[in-house]
């Protein structure tokens, strides 16, 4: 089975491509970097929906959802190693219309998450200014600086971008670990008061439906880990590094989520935990330690910056891939000859993000990001079933084969349906508006844009004919 795409084989030798320089460490930094901010803010709103125990239950159930996502993604991406990640997967496995939608899910999810991160970092810095007695200081210059510096970093090269992400993500993760050990977790009652904070009467204040309602914010524990696949075309050994970096990232996040819940649930009453924007920082304040307060403040800022950085990287790759396949004008598919980055896509998305940080608030940005993310995960459960049916194990080379198929696919689908229902309960009008948007752009793509797509050239993987075709 030795097939080479003729269009690729006849390529000129002076092609300017993305640079293959990344390893598992940078993949870990990309995935965990995007997500870790969710431990510092976001997940705790599930306590408002269903109480502290509901936040723990969704931690495990949504953890199961994302473990399925990580396993499924690792298998498909170790085979479809291309920028665009799930977009390239959808293009080869399902079809162009699904691929177009998936790419838009990706761009929206990451851009709106980037906006949320910038707002969070900007608000924190502004709070420091206000606390120190400054008046008339707005968050606007800090928001813009955050986005522009990160766009510049992404413009200049992927290796430095993700090395920076590794350092700041590791520091943010370390701040959670330091907080955990500083509150003597082995000795309940000394500092931690889980028995007082979590009682049978307040564990599930709204009953079991509170757990379902908590799903939409439980997503924040892990939202974005699937972003590792966007780097597929820049990884030295995709078949090894992508599954390794993604699974290691998922394990890191499960540990971070468990530590975060345990410390916050033991220090903050659920009524406060459910409404604060900074649960870990507030937990540090409750300990009375100035050092922990300082550490968790900077942990929160660094996690927001790392997340925005990874989001810029991923949104640009998805946009770039759309241009390369003519789903959008090919102009977007330019690669910088010196820095080897998709520089036009990176810069093009910058003013859009800046516009959103000015016109939207944190809740709106987060909701649109989560909505796009969940639609994307729903696609993944269908995608893996089609992938295994068309190219069964043994028919093509896989870097990783996930176990217990099709159980993870069906589990993922069931959990996505529950999450969409939970979003409908909390943000029904936004959900309907977003689905209507995707229907309209799908019609535009089908009836207008698809005529410009090179229909044969977009299928680049040298695979055998799918089973049954």
């Amino acid at each position, binding site marked *: 089975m030795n097939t080479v795409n003729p269009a690729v084989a006849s390529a000129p030798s002076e092609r300017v491509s993305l640079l293959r320089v990344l390893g598992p460490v940078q993949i870990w930094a990309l995935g965990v970097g995007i997500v870790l901010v969710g431990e510092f803010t976001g997940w705790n709103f599930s306590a408002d929906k269903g109480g502290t125990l509901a936040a723990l239950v969704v931690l495990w159930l949504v953890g199961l959802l994302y473990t399925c996502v990580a396993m499924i993604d690792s298998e498909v991406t170790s085979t479809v190693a291309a920028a665009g990640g799930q977009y390239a997967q959808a293009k080869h496995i399902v079809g162009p219309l699904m691929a177009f939608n998936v790419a838009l899910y990706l761009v929206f999810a990451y851009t709106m998450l980037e906006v949320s991160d910038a707002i969070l970092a900007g608000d924190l810095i502004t709070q420091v200014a206000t606390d*120190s007695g400054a008046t008339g200081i707005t968050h606007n210059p800090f928001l813009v600086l955050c986005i522009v510096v990160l766009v510049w970093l992404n413009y200049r090269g992927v290796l430095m971008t993700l090395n920076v992400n590794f350092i700041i993500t590791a520091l943010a993760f370390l701040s959670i670990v330091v907080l955990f050990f500083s509150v003597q977790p082995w000795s309940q009652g000394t500092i931690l008061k889980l028995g007082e904070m979590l009682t049978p009467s307040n564990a599930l204040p709204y009953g079991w439906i509170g757990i379902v309602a908590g799903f939409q914010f439980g997503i924040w524990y892990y939202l974005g880990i699937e972003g590792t696949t966007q780097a597929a075309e820049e990884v030295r050994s995709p078949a090894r590094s992508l599954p390794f970096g993604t699974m290691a990232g998922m394990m890191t996040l499960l540990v971070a989520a468990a530590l975060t819940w345990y410390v916050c649930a033991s220090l903050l009453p659920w009524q406060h935990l459910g409404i604060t924007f900074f649960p870990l920082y507030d937990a540090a304040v409750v300990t009375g330690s100035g050092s922990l307060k300082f550490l968790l403040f900077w942990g929160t800022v660094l996690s927001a910056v790392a997340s925005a950085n990874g989001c810029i990287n991923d949104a640009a790759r998805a946009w770039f891939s759309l241009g390369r396949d003519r789903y959008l004008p090919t102009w977007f598919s330019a690669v910088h000859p010196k820095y080897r980055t998709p520089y036009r896509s990176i810069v093009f998305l910058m003013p859009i993000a800046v516009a959103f940080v000015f016109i939207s608030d944190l809740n709106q940005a987060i909701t649109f990001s989560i909505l796009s993310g969940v639609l994307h995960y729903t696609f993944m459960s269908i995608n893996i079933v089609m992938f295994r049916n068309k190219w069964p194990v*043994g028919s093509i080379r896989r870097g990783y084969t996930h176990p217990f198929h099709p159980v993870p696919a069906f589990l993922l689908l069931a959990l996505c349906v529950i999450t969409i229902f939970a979003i409908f309960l909390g943000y029904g009008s936004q959900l309907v508006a977003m689905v209507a948007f995707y229907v309209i752009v799908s019609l535009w793509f089908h009836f207008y844009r698809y005529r410009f797509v090179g229909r044969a050239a977009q299928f680049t993987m040298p695979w055998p004919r799918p089973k049954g075709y």
Partner: protein
Amino acid sequence: MSTWALISYGCWAISGILVLWMLYDWIKTDTKYSEAQLTSSREGEIEAISEKHKL
């Protein structure tokens, strides 16, 4: 002018400089290289050429 006001102006200035630098480099790059060369990247090139598909 307070320190925080200076920091705010500094943020705007750094942002402006970086945006201008990116625009300058963008124009310089687009002028120096042909559009065909800049958009010559192809998906799956490595997979197809250097890692021929074998089981």
